[in-house]
């Protein structure tokens, strides 16, 4: 049963990814401008365009190109970007461009996750343990305010306070590549703090709501009537049953940290993957856009799959079949 459920979930993810690849391929093809045109730019002549299109396989019908692209994806070949293409060179391998950006993105996401998940879960727990109390109301109102304002405002306010007024932290997340240890952490601190604020607010709200929801179930009432104390009710009775929804929210937020932090990357000039994709869109670097989009979507699909598996595994009905 457990294995079946997991296999089914993996298959669904796989199908979703296939659909994603079709959407991305069609979607990016709709962008005006053609790769050959972009690579050749001003030096384009009808002959050179035709030659380059043939070289890149652009003369093939769309479905053939799609399968070529998909096949290359499977073999880990993300294709060539026009980046840095001078005369006589076709560009840069996309994997070469993406890897350092991906490392940056993962670094930031990792730092945010490490701070925000335990922080948010404990605050969410705290709020749900004393519902209606002053601390709960403070937490609720703060998180509500944070999720109700645009993320650029959160970022700007933190910059104004911590970097410009107090001068404690650098205002941008500039990486020269040689930073280690504390230097690296310091450089990442501003965007990290911004994202921790935003992500934590989401998780806190969800944790609190989920636990409170569970708290109205009969088995919690039973636990109260058994004389179980508040702490144990939450930590043992309620929390175990909230794994599914909370892990889901965490997964969604982590996926957002990989692909949705455009504004934070812009404000802090952080060379992450989202920014790279935007640059790609703006310079019509379709192979680059496709590769980035594929990474974002795959991250989302895989993270949600992991979350679902966590809730499948945490469900004793599936773990211990009759």
């Amino acid at each position, binding site marked *: 049963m457990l294995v079946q459920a997991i296999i089914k979930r993996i298959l669904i993810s796989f199908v*979703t990814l296939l659909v994603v690849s079709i959407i991305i391929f069609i979607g990016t093809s709709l962008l005006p401008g053609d790769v050959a045109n972009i690579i050749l730019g001003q030096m384009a002549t009808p002959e050179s365009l035709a030659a380059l299109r043939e070289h890149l396989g652009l003369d093939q019908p769309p479905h053939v190109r799609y399968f070529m692209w998909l096949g290359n994806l499977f073999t880990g070949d993300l294709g060539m970007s026009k980046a840095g293409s001078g005369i006589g060179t076709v560009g840069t391998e996309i994997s070469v461009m993406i890897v350092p950006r991906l490392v940056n993105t993962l670094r930031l996401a990792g730092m945010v996750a490490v701070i925000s998940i335990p922080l948010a879960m404990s605050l969410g727990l705290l709020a749900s343990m004393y519902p209606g109390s002053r601390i709960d109301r403070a937490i609720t109102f703060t998180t*509500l305010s944070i999720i109700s304002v*645009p993320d*650029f405002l959160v970022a700007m306010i933190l910059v104004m306070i911590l970097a410009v007024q107090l001068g404690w932290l650098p205002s941008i997340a500039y990486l020269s590549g040689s930073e280690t240890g504390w230097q690296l952490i310091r450089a990442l601190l501003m965007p990290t703090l911004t994202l921790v604020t935003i992500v934590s607010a989401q998780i806190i709200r969800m944790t609190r709501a989920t636990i409170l929801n569970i*708290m*109205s179930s009969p088995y919690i009432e039973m636990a109260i009537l058994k004389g179980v104390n508040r702490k144990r009710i939450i930590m043992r009775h309620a929390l175990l049953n909230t794994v599914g929804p909370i892990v889901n929210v965490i997964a969604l937020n982590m996926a957002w940290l990989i692909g949705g932090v*455009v*504004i934070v990357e*812009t404000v802090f000039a952080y060379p992450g993957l989202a920014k790279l994709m935007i640059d790609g869109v703006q310079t*019509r670097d379709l192979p680059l856009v496709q590769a980035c989009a594929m990474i974002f979507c795959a991250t989302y699909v895989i993270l949600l799959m992991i979350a679902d598996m966590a809730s499948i595994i945490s469900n004793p009905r599936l773990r211990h079949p009759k």
Partner: protein
Amino acid sequence: MSQEENTIEEETAFQELPDAPPRRKIRFTISGKIGIFFVLFWIMMVLIGPYVAPYNEADFLDESLFIVPGGDEYPDTDYQPPSKVAYLGTDYLGRDTLSRILYGARTTIGISFVATLLAYLLGVTLGIAAAVGSEWLDMSLSRFNDAFLSIPTIMMGLVVIAAVGSTIPILIVMTGFIYATSVFRVARSLGQDVMVSDFVEAAKVRGEGLWWIITREILPNVVMPLATDFGLRFVWIILFISSLSFLGLGVQPPMSDWGSMVKENLGGLPYGSIAPLMPSLAIATLTISINLIVDDISAHSGGKLSNRMI
């Protein structure tokens, strides 16, 4: 609730006791009431904002308005603090912040609202279709929806705007489409819950057609939860459109929308100008208010046992 006289039994002294609690009315807390106040305020501004605004949203205020006796012939008009001339000060180009917020209410709320409606139209239609339709239809719609959900919204917005440009209709259609995916999920699961209920079975066994079942049995029962969801979704769409505006992909000037106003006046922040804060405040009052109302409504429908945990 008083019971009608029991007509069959002689012992009318013992009436059938009510076992269902009387219908509860939504009771708003103080914060909910504050929320309603602000939401009503902004709805009013959407309707009359441009008529009560002291200036046009596009007007560069005349320099002569700001001359202080004995002062410069050409005083700065930008980032002026609040004064009699401009009650909320001026923006980076010397335009009246208050007027721009009032005009912007119509743009920001209008676009977000229409986009939310569109998202609902699409999402609910498809979601309910998936809930009542065949397994195959559900499967294919759901997979497609999952795929669209997996694309980061802002990226999707960027690509679409890069492909077709940024006009208000495009903004609305695109946002509506992007958010239809999440509405789909909600509508589908609500629809599925109602679909298996006995009264739908009763309608089926009566021989009712799909249209009747959807419009008369399912929709009336998902309206309330969807209305709550509508509020939250509306907030997200306001924030989403503000983010697009922040990235320079919002409405066309000289129309003002709150997101763009924050962006274009950020430079005033270090000077202590309130120009970027006022539109942020407008966004915040609206979005927080909607959330407060939604909180009260959900508290009404959900149990509050936890509040009484001893």
